């Protein structure tokens, strides 16, 4: 008797199954999402993989490896739902690699996009956000790329490598930007992406058929946000200095001049930075302590690196260079943007919480006047596989 009851119960269990089942060939695997705002309407562009074209097994039929689906709506979510009007498959956002925000929308504010992408259950928080510099997100996602056939992967990897090898970009994930926006005394940044060359021809296959594509994507500058609005751009050199201050340099290179003209290149293998605040005469001040160690990678002047004084001299020069760059970026941000992207406020909050409570309300004006002292210490360790510059040995 017990068994007779048990069996139907077990069968009932299976009735609950399958409701969220999705076969792979019913999904439109979305790798990139682009959002623009035109005339009070959100324009959403999603880059969807055409699996048969990407797979290495079959040659494919020469179609584009991805396709761009577009729809508009009064909210981001509505626009995404409207995609079903143009797509035979349901969008699947679990493997989203990048989200590109159009520059004009970024200037208006990005909170509603961030809310959607962080709330939607399918989307993870480990994709990168970028701002389309001087163009729309749609146009960025409309460029074919070589090496990585899926443009979203290409952008993701460019940003990842440049952040690790050059450090003048900043790969910002959803989790990071939300933390920056919510934290007191810290503002957010995103990296800009820019189309080099002919925007219009980027979409066609001819773009990737020649050795030199007519349109290429490039990481360009760091977008400075104040609250959730884009307020301006940092140049590459400023971006690098920004990364130095915020202790985000993985590896990079430093270039500085020799005393008698010519340049020296240092591969920075380690760079750390500490932000400290102290109160002088009732006013907060910031101290930035930077420690850099690296190896010489290129010398383009007449110096003798076998001598210790020379190394000392080079270290000194580079220290000055770094201090100059850092001071300059602080100056630019203080004067032009009044946005505390460095986290000075957070540093004050940490070490002088009482004072922070007092200046919190007018922090924006306080920030633009705050005094920051930079101290850099450089340590050059090796100078590569040769000692003195080749130049020296060449007979005139």
């Amino acid at each position, binding site marked *: 008797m017990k068994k007779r009851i048990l069996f139907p119960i077990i069968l009932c269990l*299976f009735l*609950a*199954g*399958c409701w*969220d*089942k*999705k*076969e*792979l*060939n019913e*999904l439109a*695997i979305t*790798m990139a999402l682009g959002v623009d705002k035109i005339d009070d309407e959100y324009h959403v562009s999603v880059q969807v*993989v055409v*699996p*048969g074209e*990407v*797979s*290495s*097994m*079959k040659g494919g039929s020469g179609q584009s490896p991805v396709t761009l689906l577009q729809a508009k709506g009064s909210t981001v979510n509505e626009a995404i739902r409207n995609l079903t009007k143009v797509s035979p498959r349901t969008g*699947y956002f*679990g*493997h989203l*690699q990048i989200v590109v925000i159009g520059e004009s929308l970024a200037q208006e504010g990005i909170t509603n996009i961030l809310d959607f992408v962080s709330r939607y259950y*399918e989307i*993870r928080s480990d994709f990168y956000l970028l701002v389309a510099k001087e163009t729309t997100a749609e146009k960025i996602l409309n460029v074919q790329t070589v090496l990585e056939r*899926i443009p979203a*992967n290409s952008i993701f990897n460019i940003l990842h490598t440049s952040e690790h090898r050059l450090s003048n970009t900043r790969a910002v994930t959803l989790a990071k930007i939300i933390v920056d926006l919510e934290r007191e005394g810290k503002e957010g940044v995103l990296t800009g992406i820019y189309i080099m060359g002919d925007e219009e021809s980027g979409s066609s296959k001819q773009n990737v058929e020649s050795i030199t594509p007519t349109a290429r994507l490039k990481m360009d500058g760091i977008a400075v946000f104040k609250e959730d609005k884009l307020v301006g751009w940092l140049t590459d050199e400023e971006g690098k200095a920004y990364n130095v201050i915020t202790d985000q340099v993985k590896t990079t290179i430093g270039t500085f001049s020799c005393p008698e003209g010519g340049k020296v290149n240092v591969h920075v293998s380690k760079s750390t930075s500490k932000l400290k605040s102290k109160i002088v005469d009732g006013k907060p001040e910031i101290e930035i302590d930077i420690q850099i160690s690296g190896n010489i990678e290129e010398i383009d002047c007449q110096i003798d690196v076998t001598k210790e004084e020379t190394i000392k001299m080079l270290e000194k020069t580079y220290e000055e260079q770094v201090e100059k760059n850092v001071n300059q970026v602080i100056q630019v941000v203080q004067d032009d943007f009044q946005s505390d992207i460095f986290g000075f406020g957070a540093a004050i909050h940490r070490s002088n919480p009482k004072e922070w409570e007092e200046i919190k309300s007018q922090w924006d004006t306080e920030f633009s006047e705050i005094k920051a002292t930079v101290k850099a210490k450089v340590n050059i360790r090796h100078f590569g596989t040769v000692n003195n510059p080749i130049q020296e040995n060449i007979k005139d």
Partner: protein
Amino acid sequence: MFLKKTPLNLELQENIQHIKKKLGESSDIIIREIRIGKEGTFKVGIFYIDGLSNTPSLQNFVMETLMIDISISQIENEESPNSNLMKALKDYAMTVGEIKDVANFEDLFTALLSGDVIFLVDGYSDGFIIGNKHVIERGVTEPTAQSVVRGPRDGFSENIRVNTALIRRRIKDPSLWMESKEIGRLSKTNVSIMYINGVADDKIVKELHSRLDRIDIDGILESANIEEFIQDSQYSPFPTVYNTERPDVVSAALLEGRIAILIDGTPFVLIIPALFVQFFQSSEDYYQRAILGSLVRLLRFLAFGISLLAPALFVAVITFHHEIIPPALLISIAAQREGVPFPAFIEAVIMEIIFEILREAGLRMPRVIGSAMSIVGAFVIGTAAVEAGLISAAMVIVVSITAISSFVSPTYDIAIAGRILRFLFMGIAASFGLFGIMVGLIALILHLTSLSSFGVPYMAPIAPYSASEQKDTFIRMPIWKLLSRPKYISKNSVRQKYPAPTRKD
């Protein structure tokens, strides 16, 4: 069971008639009437079954002695009272080893049909059973189902005497005891229980006896018939009785305190109690170096996991949990699935069923067509199905790795359990995804822990946990570190006293 036994008649002719009638005048019964004594005084009947008895030895040692060698006067001198003729014959005339008296027809028939020779004398209501069996046998050959790279190559045969001898040759101790019974009303199969007295648990021996005594069936043709009668859980896919055709495995089991059941007519010997981990242990684990033995054993557990879960995990992941596949792999699998008309679950079931058909066909069909079928099978299951767009290539890989993994198991029985449960898990995976598989695994573990084999918990020594026995469960420590016998099986758990190999002090 205990019928009244029919006594033999005094008249030889009547006995002959009775035997002929009972056996339906079968043509392989040889009845030979001879006369012995000086003047042919005594009429004697010799009965045997052609093919079961050893005819040359019957002629050399029984008939020749009776008819030619014996001076009948000797007998006549001895036999003043008639009843002593039988004793005299037994004492002086029968030049054979095994001889028994018989007084009723039931014993007579059992002996006759077992291949012994029956000897009756006219005028006497009892006779002799002369042990003269001659069994046609295959001889000791290499076991086919459980092969090893390093280790003894002899395997059991169909003759129970050969089998017991193979075990006795390995354990030469008087405490190796053997108890025999006859099971099967018609087949009267000889079943022997072997165990080491003092090492095996008496309670288990007693329990085994009582279970064997309860069997009431007409015939036992294979050890599986006995296994089904004595196993603990009838409807579990997991076996609770171990079987092997390797004498070294049986000997090792006996030394651990297990009990072997040998059945006449089959090379498969049963071993009880049988625990879950035992099915993953090959005798070769102990013949290879300990490190390799341990790694290979771990590999077997892994392979069992794959054979049980691989298709289920694959189905669950590609229908419910796309996020856990790396993007590049997801796109690659998606590309393969383009144009495949079936859902992943149906695809997996189709492939598994095709594979099961191929496997079964491979087992049953005549050997000579084997190569033809393997070509067709490999082609259909591999290339053609993918090229026709019916099945995705990834699914072929998953099913293949599953199939190969299921053959890693050293015993066929546990692989069967994996095969059955695999389909169940695929169904759960297709309905509930990984959550379903988790629940299914929990249910499986509950089931496994509820099993027992002759009172010993099936999952011992994992649950109930025994730290000291972990030395020989998932891994195998060097043999000199295995100091004790499995404590859930043997009551005498000391195997050796000194751990390290002898060294100079």
